C-alpha cells in the first residue's frame, strides 16, 4: 500500500488522503462489496422478468427487458367469433371433457417476437386460435369456466385459461414465452352463439406477466393484506404499551419500580426458543377457552390475535423510549403541572410530539420484525385466512417448484413494501441501528 501521510489537513479526519493507488484500491474494494451486496437483488429482478424457458436456458438478460417484444405491435381489433358444435377441427387436441361449443379466433398479426417463435415452429400468420372447448357449467356463456385455446392447425401450445368478461385472456400468456408476447383476448360481449372478442396487446402482462401470475397463483393479495394488517396492529400495540410503560418508568414514582424494571430487563434475556412451545400451548388454551365460554371458534388460532397480541409489547422499545423520555427536562413537566396538566395529557400532548425520532425508530424496527416473522405464523396458522406474506412465499416456493421466475416475482412482491419503507427512512434507519445497536 502506497500511502503518503504528508498532506497537512485541519479537517477532523482519521486518516489523511492517501496516494492514488491506495484510494483506487479502496474504491475497488467498496465497489466489489457493493456488487456482492446488490447482485442478488439484480438477479431477483432479472429472473422475475424472465420466462420459464429463458431461466432454464440460463439466459442472463430476459428478452422482456429489451424492446423486441414491444416493437411494431399490430393494431387492436374487435373480432366476432362464431361458436358451433364441436364436430370439426379438433386437430388432435386432447379433449378430456365434453365441450359444449367451440369457435376460432383469427389472428392476423403478432409481435415480431412471436413471429420468430412461430417460424421456429413452422407456422406463420395468419393463423387461427381455436377455442377447443368452452366448458360452461351453466347454459349461459357468461358462466363458463374454461376456455382452451390453441394456435394454428398444429398445436403450438395448449393451455387452459380462464377468461372472464372483464379480464384479459390469451393463448397461454400465463405460462410461456409465446403467449406472453402474443395477442391477448378480451371477451367484450358474450352471446350463446357467438363471442365478441377484442384482440390487443396487453403491455402490462408483457412486462409484469410473472408478477401477475405469482400474485394470482399464490393468493398474494390475501397474504399482503394479512401482513399489512398484522404488522400495523403489532406496531400500534408496541407503541401504545411501550410509550405508557416507558413514561411510567421515566417520569413517575411508584412502589416496586426497581423490581418491575428488573422484571422488564429479565424478559429481554429470555430466548424465543424456550417460550415458543409454551406460547403455542397458551394460544391453543385460549382458543379452547374462547370456543367453550363464548362460542367463538378461531378466536386465537388462525386469527390475527395470535399473530399480533403476543408481540404487542417489546422490552427493547420500552428501554429505548424510557431513555429518551428521561432526558426531557423536569421544568417542562412542572410548568405543565401548574397549568393543571395530568400525566396522560403531558404524555400525549407534550412528550409524544417531542419524541418523533425515537418513535420513528420504534415503528421502523418493529415493522420490519413483524413483517419478517415466519416461524410463529407457521405455527399458529393453518389456512391462508391470516397467514402473512412470508409464510405465503415460503409455501409458494414449494408450490411453484421449478418455475423460478414466479418465485422471484413473489420475492419481489414480498420485499417491496419493506424496501420502500427503507428508502424513505434510510437515515433514521442506519442512525437508529448505530445508536442503539439492535439485535441481529
Amino acid at each position, binding site marked *: *500500500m502506497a500511502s503518503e*501521510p504528508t498532506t497537512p489537513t485541519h479537517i477532523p*479526519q*482519521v*486518516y489523511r488522503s492517501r496516494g492514488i493507488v491506495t484510494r483506487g484500491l479502496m474504491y475497488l474494494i*467498496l465497489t466489489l*462489496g*457493493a456488487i*456482492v*451486496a446488490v447482485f*442478488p437483488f439484480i*438477479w431477483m429482478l432479472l429472473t422475475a422478468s424472465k420466462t420459464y424457458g429463458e431461466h*432454464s436456458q*440460463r439466459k*442472463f438478460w430476459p428478452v422482456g427487458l429489451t424492446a423486441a417484444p414491444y416493437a411494431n405491435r399490430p393494431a387492436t381489433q374487435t373480432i366476432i367469433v362464431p361458436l358451433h358444435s364441436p364436430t370439426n377441427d379438433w386437430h388432435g387436441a386432447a379433449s378430456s371433457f365434453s365441450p359444449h361449443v367451440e369457435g376460432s379466433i383469427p389472428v392476423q398479426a403478432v409481435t415480431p417476437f412471436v413471429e420468430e417463435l412461430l417460424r421456429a415452429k413452422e407456422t406463420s400468420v395468419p393463423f387461427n386460435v381455436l377455442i377447443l372447448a368452452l366448458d360452461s357449467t351453466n347454459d349461459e356463456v357468461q358462466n363458463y369456466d374454461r376456455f382452451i385455446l390453441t394456435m394454428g392447425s398444429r398445436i403450438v401450445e395448449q393451455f387452459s385459461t380462464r377468461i372472464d368478461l372483464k379480464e384479459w385472456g390469451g393463448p397461454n400468456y400465463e405460462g410461456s414465452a409465446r403467449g406472453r408476447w402474443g395477442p391477448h383476448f378480451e371477451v367484450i360481449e358474450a352471446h350463446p352463439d357467438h363471442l365478441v372478442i377484442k384482440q390487443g396487446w396487453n403491455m402490462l402482462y408483457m412486462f409484469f406477466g410473472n408478477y401477475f401470475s405469482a400474485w394470482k397463483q399464490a393468493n398474494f393479495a390475501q397474504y399482503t393484506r394479512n401482513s399489512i394488517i398484522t404488522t400495523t396492529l403489532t406496531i400500534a400495540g408496541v407503541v*401504545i404499551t411501550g410509550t405508557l*410503560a416507558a413514561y*411510567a418508568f421515566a417520569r413517575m*414514582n*411508584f*412502589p416496586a*419500580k*426497581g423490581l*418491575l424494571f428488573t*422484571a422488564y430487563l429479565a*424478559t429481554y434475556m429470555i*430466548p*424465543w*426458543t*424456550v*417460550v*415458543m*412451545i*409454551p*406460547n403455542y*400451548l*397458551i394460544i391453543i388454551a385460549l382458543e379452547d377457552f374462547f370456543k367453550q365460554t363464548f362460542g367463538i371458534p378461531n378466536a386465537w388460532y388462525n386469527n390475527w390475535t395470535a399473530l399480533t397480541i*403476543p408481540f404487542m*409489547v417489546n422490552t427493547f422499545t420500552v428501554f429505548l423510549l424510557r431513555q429518551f423520555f428521561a432526558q426531557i427536562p423536569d421544568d417542562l413537566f412542572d410548568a405543565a403541572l401548574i397549568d393543571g396538566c*395530568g400525566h396522560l395529557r403531558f404524555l400525549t400532548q407534550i412528550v409524544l410530539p417531542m419524541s418523533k425520532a425515537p418513535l420513528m425508530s420504534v415503528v421502523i424496527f418493529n415493522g420490519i420484525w413483524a*413483517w*419478517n416473522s*415466519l*416461524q410463529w405464523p407457521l405455527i399458529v396458522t393453518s389456512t391462508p385466512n391470516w397467514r402473512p406474506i*412470508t409464510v405465503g412465499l*415460503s409455501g409458494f*416456493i414449494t408450490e411453484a417448484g421449478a418455475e*423460478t421466475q414466479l418465485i*422471484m416475482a413473489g*420475492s*419481489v412482491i414480498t*420485499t417491496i413494501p*419493506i424496501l420502500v419503507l*427503507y428508502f424513505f427512512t434510510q437515515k433514521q*434507519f*442506519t442512525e437508529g*441501528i*448505530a445508536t442503539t*445497536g439492535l439485535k*441481529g
Partner: protein
Amino acid sequence: MSTIDQSMTHTSRHGLFAGYRGRRIREALQAYLFLFPGTLLLIVFNLLPVGYALYISMHKWRIQKGHFLAFENYLKALGEPIDVVWVVGGMGLLAAAWMVWRSITAGTSSWGFLLRAAAVLMLLFGGLALIVGFPNMLENGDDDLFKSLLTTFFYSLGTVPLQIVLSFLLANILFQNIRGKTMWRILYFLPYVTVAVASAAVWRTIFDPSRGVINTLLSLAGVAEGNLPKWVFEARGVNLLIGEWLGIEIPTWAAGPSLALVVIILYNIWTYVGYNTVIYLAGLGNVPTEMYEAARIDGASQWELLRHITIPLVSPTTYFLLMMGILGTFRAFNHIYVITTGYTLGFPQGTTMTTSILIFKHFWEGHRFGYASALAFILTGVMLSLTWVQNRLSEGRVFYG
C-alpha cells in the same frame, strides 16, 4: 436507577403533607395503570411461559400432556446422570479455576500461592472430569443433538469471524475521505433490510446447481458440467470436496461442514456484513481524533495506528458484534428453513440441522413438546455458558474508553 431511589426517599420524607401524599398515591395508581397492558402481556407471553416450558420439559408431552418424567427428557438428550455430573462439574471447575486465577492477579495476597495451587488443581480435576464425562455423554446422549450442536458450531465459526473482519475492513474504508458515503451505506445495508424469506429464496436460486448464476459462471469459466458443485444438495463436507479437488485424501472426521451449510453461511455473511459495518462506523466515530493526531506526531505508521489505536478502541463494538453474531447463529431459523424448504428439515442428510432447527423438528414435526422444551433449555444453557466464557475472555481485552 440511582436517581429513582433518591427521588423515592425524597418523597417519603415529605409524605406528611396530605395533599401531596394524595397526589403520590394517585400517581402510583396511574403508573400501575400505565404499566398494566405491557406488563400483562409480558407476564402472559414471556415470564409465565418460561416456567411453563420447564413444566412441559419435565413431562412426556406429545400434543397432550403425558405423565411426569422429572429430568428424563434432559437425560435422554444428555446421557446418564453421572455423565452430566462429570461434564457440568468439570466445566464448573474450569470456570472456578479461571475465577480464582483472576482474583490472584487482581489483588496479590499472602494466600497467593495456596490459591494458585487450588486453581491448578481445579483446572486439573475439571479437565479430567471433562475427559471422563464427555465421551460417555456423547455415547449415551442424543446423537442428533450433538450433531446439531456441531453443525451450529461450524455455522458460527464459519460465519462470525469472516463477517466481523469484512465489516471492519469496509467500515474503515468508509470512515475515510470517501465520496458518496450515504450511497455505499444504503447499498451495504440492503441485504439486512430485505425480508429474510425473500432473500433466502433468491439465495436458493443463485446457488441452484443446474440453473443458478453461480454454476453458470463456473461453467463459463471452464468447469466441466459434471464437476459443478451441487451446493444446497451437497451433503459431503467442504474439506472433503476441496481435498478431492486438490487430489488429497481427507479423513472423514475432518470433513467439516457440508457444502449446503456453506451456502447458508455465505447467506448469513451477505446479510449481516452491512449491519455490522454500520455499527462499526458508529464505533469508529467514537474514537477521539486527537489520539490519531498524537500518534501520528510520534511517527506512528498507518498500520500501527490501526493496530494500537483503532482495534483496541473499537473492541467494545467488536465484542458486541461477536456476541450478537454467535447468539444470532444459535437462534437462526428463517433463512435455513427457507433455503432448505421443500425438502426435509436439515436437508441434505441432516447436515444443515442446527440445534434451533432440530428443536423445531421435534416440536412441529415430531410433536414431542416435552423433549423439544428440554432441548430448548439445553440450547439456552449452551448459549449462556458461551456468553459467560466470552465475557471472561474479553476481560482486559475489551477497552471501554
